[in-house]
């Protein structure tokens, strides 16, 4: 049996009024890939902050043994010096600097403050080879896709002589193929003896690469088991939510009605490249009570399609028509699109969906203030009642509707965004990655909500990168690739393989 590189014993971390971690233990053996699973707010990030010294020694109870000795990190640079490096979900690269400059940021190959560019580029090239990138060291990071940026982050960690590499939701924003490349790289690094911790919501990935899984729930370590025990997704889910989840998608009685919305000949030019058609001749329709999926890789134009329909919020030279109930409607700005009966729930809730520093109430009513106002004057009481109603209906977990949304977990933030759009009373809801970055329990609740909407006769368009989710939720699936729809099929005839082959054969 290998020695433990890291042994966190009985870590307890208390914030005023909250016990964020309660007697959590984590043992990571040298050279393994250790997965940490848990719902949002379970305490994973807090645990990593304790480990990396964001919360310095003394601010928590318990002991961290690292590399055979008691470790007391004062800050991040302290833990980094010992080879513990965390790659966060939000990448920390400077977009306008080159790959090489980013790799050695704060750690430059310099003599007397003067950078040795030849040495820098030489080392960059060798590091990039290690992570499987073939871009020139002088390429600006902003020119790279998210997948490649993630790999640059790993190369950056390698440049610092990393011994324990921690990846926080590394594939959350990656396409299927980029995710695969990243997981392959992790396995490759493992063969070279690197110890890694991965925090992930994607259980299929965890099952694929992890040697050991530790599940954390409500600030406590619930279970820890080795791959040899047979890691099953169901087992992890059961430990994460404290209940078994036989069916990950709640059942729905399908009652599909008349044609609700139809989009015809929809074409959009890229806002920055006048010669590039980002969306070409897209046609699709949604019926009342129907959940329609749009599958496709990231960058296939799904979000761009949705946003261009929703009040021309993306692109230019938009042509085509949107019909509701068979009649063309004006969707030339967001207000008109809302009045036409549309709602769009963005994939990027933090920067496009919410005003983070504002309260739950104010976020929910924002798109339909007229409903809580008498003339131009707002009615506080009505506003609070609306917020309270959605808090109950969607079970938004918060001490009160006057909390700022920045303090909520991802799943609850998403429920606030959904509440906002339900409050405008749309006929068709376009949901863009509605379950991205939220935990299993909240996902289930959101699926249930989608079913309720369909049962109430609304049309739902669901854009998702997770194919199982589309297969589990939709009645019909469109496949999108490179700005155009390349296929349409009822879900009963759909499979992951069939969708994938449509994408790659195009």
């Amino acid at each position, binding site marked *: 049996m290998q020695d433990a590189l890291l042994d966190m014993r009985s870590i307890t971390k208390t914030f005023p009024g909250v016990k964020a971690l309660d007697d959590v233990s984590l043992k990571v053996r040298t050279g393994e890939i250790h997965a940490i699973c848990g719902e949002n707010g379970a305490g994973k990030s807090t645990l990593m902050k304790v480990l990396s010294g964001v919360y310095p020694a003394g601010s928590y109870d318990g002991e961290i043994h690292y590399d055979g000795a008691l470790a007391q990190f004062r800050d991040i640079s302290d833990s980094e010096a010992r080879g513990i490096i965390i790659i966060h979900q939000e990448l920390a690269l400077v977009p306008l600097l080159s790959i090489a400059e980013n790799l050695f940021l704060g750690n430059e190959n310099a003599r007397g403050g003067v950078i040795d560019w030849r040495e820098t580029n030489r080392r960059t090239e060798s590091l990039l080879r290690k992570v499987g990138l073939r871009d020139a060291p002088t390429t600006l990071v902003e020119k790279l896709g998210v997948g490649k940026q993630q790999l640059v982050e790993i190369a950056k960690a390698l440049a610092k002589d990393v011994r324990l590499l921690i990846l926080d939701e590394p594939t959350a924003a990656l396409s299927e193929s980029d995710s695969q490349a990243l997981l392959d790289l992790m396995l490759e690094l493992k063969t070279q003896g690197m110890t890694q911790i991965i925090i992930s919501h994607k259980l299929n990935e965890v099952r694929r690469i992890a040697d050991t899984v530790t599940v954390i729930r409500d600030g406590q370590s619930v279970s820890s088991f080795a791959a040899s025990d047979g890691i099953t997704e169901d087992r992890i889910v059961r430990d994460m939510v404290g209940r078994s989840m036989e069916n990950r998608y709640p059942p729905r009685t399908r009652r599909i009605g008349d044609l609700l919305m139809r989009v015809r000949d929809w074409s959009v030019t890229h806002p920055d490249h006048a010669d590039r058609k980002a969306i070409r001749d897209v046609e699709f329709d949604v019926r009342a009570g129907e959940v329609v999926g749009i599958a496709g890789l990231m960058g296939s134009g799904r979000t761009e399609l949705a946003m261009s329909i929703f009040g021309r919020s993306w692109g230019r030279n938009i042509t085509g028509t949107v019909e509701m109930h068979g009649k063309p409607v004006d969707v030339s700005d967001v207000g008109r699109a809302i009045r036409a009966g549309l709602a769009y729930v963005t994939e990027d809730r933090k920067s496009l969906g919410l*005003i983070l520093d504002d309260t739950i109430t104010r976020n929910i009513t924002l798109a339909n203030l*007229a409903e809580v106002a008498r003339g131009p004057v707002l009615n506080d009481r009505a506003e609070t009642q609306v917020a309270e109603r959605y808090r109950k209906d969607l079970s938004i977990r918060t001490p009160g509707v006057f909390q700022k949304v920045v303090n909520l977990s991802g799943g609850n933030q998403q429920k606030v965004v959904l509440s906002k759009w339900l409050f405008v009373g749309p006929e068709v809801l376009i949901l863009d990655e509605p379950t991205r970055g939220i935990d299993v329990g909240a996902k289930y609740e959101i699926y249930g909500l989608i079913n309720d909407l369909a049962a109430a006769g609304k049309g739902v368009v669901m854009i998702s990168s997770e194919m199982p989710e589309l297969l589990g939720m939709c009645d019909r699936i469109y496949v999108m690739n490179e700005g155009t729809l390349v296929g349409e099929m009822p879900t009963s005839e759909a499979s992951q393989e069939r969708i994938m082959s449509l994408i790659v054969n195009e």
Partner: protein
Amino acid sequence: MSLAENSSRNAGATGRIGSYLAAHLREYGLLFALIAIMGFFQIVTGGTLLRPINLTNLLLQNSYIIIMALGMLVVIVAGHIDLSVGSVMGFIGALAAVMIVNHELPIGVTMLTCVAVGAVIGGAQGYWIAYWKIPSFIVTLAGMLVFRGLSLWLLEGQSVGPFPREFQVIATGFVPDILPGGEAFKALLGVRNFNVLAFATGLVAASWVVWSGLRQRAQNRAYGIEDEPRAFFMARIAVIAIALVFILYKLATFRGLPNVLLTMGVLTIIYAFITERTVLGRRIYALGGNEKAAKLSGIKTERLTFLAFVNMGILAAVAGLVFAARLNTATPKAGFALELDVIAAVFIGGASMSGGVGKIVGAVVGAFLMGVLNNGMSIMGIGIDYQQMIKGLVLLAAVIFDVYNKKKG
């Protein structure tokens, strides 16, 4: 009840008050700082600060800054800045002088024209900022230079004045006492002057503060969101109410209610109402809080930004008229560097540079704080050199305090 139980309950209450205070340090801090500074200058100036004549002066001196601070708060909450207001104010004063003094145009026509020109100026700048996405810093920096130059050109480098009496009264006049009983009060209080209207205004304002405070508190309790300890609430309301009565009483014993105080008061109430209670106000905060999210919620963010600058232009024009009337002359240097005082007042009042945060009342108190500092230091005979340094440090301290508070919270 046992002793132990009792003491533990007290400890709980103290903890609650402590945490409440920590969360609302900024608002109390501003009020407390204003009172402390006034108290300090009252003592070191030997009581000059709060003499009726000085108090009247203090209001007149700061009226145009407060009027512009109302518009600047809106601009800053929307996520922008306006560096041109000092120049615009000077330009409008110059325009008024040329129209009234040189061309002998009627005062009413002149004032309406000036306000309209202010709106056009604000719109001209707002257009580039809102629809072309040119940073407001650049556009209004350009505006600052352009309108400074236009004032010089319009006045041909000369001072133009004086204004007719009817124009001067908008800044230096007083509201006539329409209420009876002045003689009785004079005899009763042994003062030479007593303006019943001014005093009554103070009483009405104070009662309104108490009434609306109680109403708000009752409403918050109904929602279960009231966390201000009772003692704090009472103290805060009492301080504000007493201050209002006190100040208006002092004014009553001098010449009564200055016209500009009335203008300022009415404008402050209107803007506080718009920003805090209306759909329009809510949208401005949303725009500053997250422009993209606001836009995707169906808010016409461009038009809102444009209107914020039109509004700023109108208020700068009003301030320009008041300023010119007060000095009784228009000079090419009028309003020089005044934009900085206005911006400082808004930030001292708690607005955030990144937009979405700030209150009208905060901006007004911030402007008063700066005004009292100016006035107090001038009475003490402190040189302009030290005055500038102290004001700069006060601004820095207020913002550091904000950032520190935010980090801690």
